[in-house]
């Protein structure tokens, strides 16, 4: 039963999604916060001449003060500098690994969905198989491929995380392409003699972009968390939020509690992930209000 009897106004799906998103204050504030966080991490260290590496043996484990806003760590390094610089790597990992997984996932999913049939069957069987393998397992094995000396180098981490997180993206894109392929406007374009490449570029890709954006946004926090797991197992990056947090967890002891070591990076990490999750959910509601 419907009560709105107004003539439907013409509105493009994109305009409608944008209107819905703007009404979602949670997602909006999330976006602003993440942007602010990124700006702070990338600009503040150089603006304030913060130095994350110089050690001061006399200033070990200092609680937060005016000189050291976030205190100092076990080697007397300024913790604010370390948290902000660590943010750079964490955000970068999130971004680059997600891009990797978007590229793989979209390509894989589009091919499977567009050609369908046996091609699709074989490709999706492989995705099913990959789903059955605990992904941490693969990440660790892929990390091993890079030499010992590359430990702390971000590139292997980008690759490893991107290589395991593309599965959901591929599935989503494939599902979308599979239905798009059967839609009237695509059939019409094909009947009018458009080439495969043109159909994909003009009709398929623009229509999956929305859903890809949504899942990409939701992949960033997953990737950042995975990186922190790797750091915790001693396989992660040299200086990232995950690495700072795991270091802090390592020095948890009953005698002296250096709360700031755990609190600041955890807070930054949690706020970033929280915001990204809200932005992703907001985008999803905006693009596809019925989907989840």
């Amino acid at each position: 039963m419907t009560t709105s009897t107004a003539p439907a106004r013409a509105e493009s799906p994109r305009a409608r999604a944008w209107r819905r998103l703007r009404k979602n204050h949670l997602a909006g504030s999330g976006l602003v916060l993440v942007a602010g966080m990124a700006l702070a991490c990338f600009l503040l260290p150089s603006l304030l001449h913060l130095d994350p590496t110089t050690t001061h043996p006399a200033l070990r484990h200092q609680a937060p003060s005016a000189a050291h806003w976030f205190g100092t760590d076990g080697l007397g390094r300024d913790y604010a500098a370390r948290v902000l610089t660590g943010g750079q790597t964490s955000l970068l990992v999130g971004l680059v690994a997600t891009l990797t997984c978007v590229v793989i996932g979209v390509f894989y999913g589009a091919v499977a969905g567009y050609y369908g049939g046996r091609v699709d069957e074989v490709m999706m069987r492989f995705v099913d198989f990959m789903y059955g393998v605990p992904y941490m397992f693969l990440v660790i094995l892929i990390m091993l491929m890079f030499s010992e000396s590359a430990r702390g180098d971000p590139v292997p981490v980008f690759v490893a995380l991107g290589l395991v997180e593309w599965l959901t993206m591929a599935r989503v894109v494939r599902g979308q392409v599979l239905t798009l392929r059967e839609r009237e406007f695509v059939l019409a374009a094909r009947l009018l003699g458009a080439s495969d490449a043109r159909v994909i570029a003009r009709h398929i890709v623009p229509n999956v972009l929305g859903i890809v954006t949504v899942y990409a946004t939701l992949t960033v926090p997953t990737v950042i968390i995975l990186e922190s797991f790797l750091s915790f197992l001693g396989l992660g990056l040299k200086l990232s939020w995950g690495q700072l947090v795991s270091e802090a967890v390592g020095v948890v002891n009953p005698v002296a509690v250096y709360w700031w070591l755990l609190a600041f990076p955890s807070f930054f990490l949690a706020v970033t992930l929280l915001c990204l999750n809200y932005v992703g959910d907001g985008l999803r509601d905006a693009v596809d209000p019925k989907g989840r």
Partner: protein
Amino acid sequence: MTRAPESEALLRVVELTTEFLGDDATVRAVDHVSFDVKKGEMLGIVGESGSGKSATSLSIMRLLPPQGRVTHGSVELAGANLLALPEARMRELRGRRVAMIFQDPMTALNPYLRVGEQLIEGAVLHLGMSRADAQTRAAALLDRVRIPDARARLRSYPHELSGGMRQRVMIAMALLCDPELLIADEPTTALDVTVQAQILELLSELRRERGLSILLITHDLGVVATTCDRVLVMYAGRVVELAPAAELFARPLHPYTAALMQSLPRLDAKPGAPLESIAGMPPRLDQGPFRECSFAPRCRFVHDACRVADPPLTEAGPERLRRCVLPLEKLS
């Protein structure tokens, strides 16, 4: 106004007004609607989608979605105001004295439960029957609504039945506790034409057999023509015409009703003649009270008097009401 004597009216709806709170505005889906259903009568409510007919039925059952609210009026069942009952009392009454069937029997039956489970629920709940007795009763009723092999069907799941079968199950489920009033909300819309006719025939039979009162809600004039005693036509949340079925079809007294009839496909139409439709769209209902006749923008007979004010519902002969200022003789 000609009204049936008090004693005969089973359901009396007076000035029922229902509003829905939207994001930005309040939609008045039902606007001062009054009618009654006599004992053993079948009353049809006809209107386009969005005319407020379903909101009316849900208001009577007090099953409006959370954003919907009855803001004015009363609903009396045999003299007791349903809108004033505590929720627990209302619940005892639903399914027991007033039952309801819905448009889409595909979605209205629970896909996760066996048909039998869903059928006997009411009897166990309202009549205190044992499950075994309730099953016997349910099987007998399934048999009555002409479902073959009724006993075995109790163990089926809804997806194993055809659309017509499911609607029969819905009817059996509604009648299990011998209600006095059955509200049928678009009971045949989702069904094939031949199945539609069977279901309508079944409803008529059951009504005669049991002295049941039926409120039949539909967008299809053809459906009410064959089955109902009286017909209420709704437009934009309001009653625009009320008349005995035969008279309504012989001589519609509101341009909207007339237009609806002309948009029905006719057997005696010239081959190749285009099917008529009503131009324009129904008005928005979230803009406050109407300042002119709500049908004026789409009306073929519109003249200056229609633009002055929203016309009231007036008597137009014995048992006939209409909301139109056009002189009767001009309508033809």
